[in-house]
């Protein structure tokens, strides 16, 4: 996945899947969730800044959705969002460890209360959707994962390793002139990390959408 930063970052688009993103960000989408982990992300973290569509009350929401682990389910959800004009800001999908017949989709979306109510109800209406939970107003832990390939010339290496150390991330691949670093955390932490590495020259990155779980013992049904 290639990311282009800079001015193109603010150039918003909505592609055919209804996924909001920035020009230059590519989105991977497969029609099936069966037996594969699939992650979609977009890089427009500051999307809200110049969006005219958003109302003042519009807020980012994080939805945790349990679905039947069947072919075509993701397509139904993506189609629902594009057909009704909702945004998918990020999306990650994988089979759950506790039940292989069920997949969990974690989705970030934006909208005012009215839109979120419709999104939740419309998702529920899909036959393959088991539960929809809006974690936004609950206590939850959230993580994203990024792999960053960064220039690492001999004179930069010590500085990069210091940053890696401070952020408690780790180097997973080393080459004569690059490091590939694995880093996980919430969105803010990842942004800060990327900003610090940018002066070194980021070669490429791959970043997941958010995943999240509520901070309570009981399983959210």
């Amino acid at each position, binding site marked *: 996945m290639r990311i282009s930063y800079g001015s193109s970052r603010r150039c918003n688009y909505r592609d055919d899947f209804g996924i909001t993103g920035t020009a230059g960000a590519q989105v991977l989408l497969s029609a099936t969730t069966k037996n594969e982990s699939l992650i979609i992300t977009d890089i427009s973290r500051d999307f809200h800044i110049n969006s005219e569509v958003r109302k003042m009350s519009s807020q980012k929401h994080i939805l945790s959705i349990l*679905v039947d682990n069947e072919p075509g389910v993701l397509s139904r959800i993506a*189609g629902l969002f594009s057909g009704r004009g909702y945004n998918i800001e990020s999306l990650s999908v994988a089979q759950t460890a506790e039940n292989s017949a069920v997949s969990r989709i974690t989705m970030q979306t934006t909208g005012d209360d*009215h839109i979120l109510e419709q999104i939740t*109800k*419309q998702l529920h209406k899909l*036959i393959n*959707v088991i539960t929809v939970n809006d974690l936004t107003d609950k206590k939850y832990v959230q993580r994203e994962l990024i792999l960053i390939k960064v220039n690492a010339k001999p004179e930069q290496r010590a500085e990069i390793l210091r940053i890696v150390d401070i952020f408690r991330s780790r180097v997973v691949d080393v080459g004569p002139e690059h490091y590939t670093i694995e880093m996980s955390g919430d969105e803010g932490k990842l942004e800060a990390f990327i900003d610090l590495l940018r002066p070194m020259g980021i070669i490429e990155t791959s970043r997941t959408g958010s995943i999240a779980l509520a901070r309570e013992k009981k399983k959210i049904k």
Partner: protein
Amino acid sequence: MKLKGAQILMKMLIDQGVDTLFGYPGGAVIDIYDSLADTPSIRHILVRHEQGAVHAADAYARAKGTVGVALVTSGPGATNTVTGIASAYMDSIPVVIFTGQVPTALIGNDAFQEVDIVGITRPCTKHNYLVKDIDKLARTIKEAFHIAQSGRPGPVLVDLPKDIMAATAEFEDPGEIDLKSYKPTYNPNKKQLSKVVELIKESKRPLIFSGGGVVLSKASEELTKLARMTNTPVTASLMGLGTFPGSDPLWLGMPGMHGTYRANMSISECDLMIAAGVRFDDRVTGRKDKFASGAKIVQIDIDPTSIHKNVEATCPIVGDCKNTLELLNSMLESENPSDIKGDASERQEWLDQIAQWKATSPQRYEQTGDVIKPQYVIDRLHKLTDSNTIITTEVGQNQMWTAQYYHFDKPNHFITSGGLGVMGFGLPAAIGAKAACPDKLVVCVAGDGSIQMNSQELMTAIEADLPVKIVILNNRYLGMVRQWQELFYDKRYSSTNMEKAPDFVKLADAYGAVGMRTDRADEVETVLKNGLACEGTVIMEFIVEREECVYPMVPAGGAITEMILV
């Protein structure tokens, strides 16, 4: 017991009580048609275009209050069904569509007559399936019927690869269907209902707004009882026509873009609206901030997404219309009868006001001179037929005039493509309705434009001996679009002039039907009488006033009280 896939399909259809299929054969479904030949309990009606099969199944479902079934082949057979499926989806009609598919090994190879119909119909079906395993076939079919007719009904498509139909497997009864992720809410929240009782008692100017959901849940008796018990006037959406008797003094007519003045004024002036099974379509609400702005809205719907979608409800109730109204009525019955009718003098004032709206701005037309007014034809048709007549329509002016001037007394007797507005719906729908109710008179009201969209189905009516009566209001225009052009586009009749049309009498003749035509007002009644009395399929063509408009009319996006009256 070992059975072929196609035999399992037949067995499951019989199990679901299916006795009629509308379909069209093709290479991918040849095994199914082979098994169908061994299944005498299922009648197959051969349409002349797959779109007609789905419309017919849709109307069959509506007329009979059951599930309609269509069977078509892969590729073009499947894509031809899409309009029919989308129409059934918009109108929430339970239809199951079986499409053939290329053998599983060829799926994805761009095989001959291959199309991803499951992908294509995902946004216009309630649910759909591709069966890739014969062991899941029986269960999938049962699930499809369960989903189509439960909750808010809708079309379900099942894609059947040819090799699955030809393969054999041990047949096992799938047992009860229990989907953990699909549990519609049938029973309303009682606490919410007691709030409704209070709202009814407090209300000075109540109004009931009934919709297609009342037809689907067979709740028109309960709705009528509620209205009469509480002395509340009733309006109904296009899809809800017939849920309250059109001959009742409490009836206001249809609201919205072509609604009556009194229905629209009542919506604007009421202080309580009890909306049952409606989705507040833009053709009903007009400008939303002016819609029932002074009213508390009770909204009853089995589909939670209908609530707060277009209009904010004060008191939302998720539940089946029949269950909900039944319970509400029983709660009201335990109240003091005079309490639930509101203050007598205030209620009389409200009903007087409505009567005055009716008197000052009635829905009207004038039949003067020789040239036939289209409304006059519908008016006469209504007078010449009884309330057991099933009326289907095409889409456009013919549809609106029928909704306005044919006063329906019973549900399931007005069959029209409401949400999607499909021209070409009426004739195949009439055939479907006739197949469902062979003893009833079925009339299709059409325009000269829309009848040409599926006129090939005349052959189906003749061949299957399903005689339908077709009334064509011929103004040699695409009338509704022409009306908009007249009112909002400086009368530039761009591409709506249809002076060239087939000779419909000869067309009837060509298919073996009876054709009649008149352009004189004094002959309308005679033609209708003779045509309706004829045994077979009849086309009655009326050459009508060319530039007649449907009034009243609310310009798109306007408040529903801002009506063009004549």
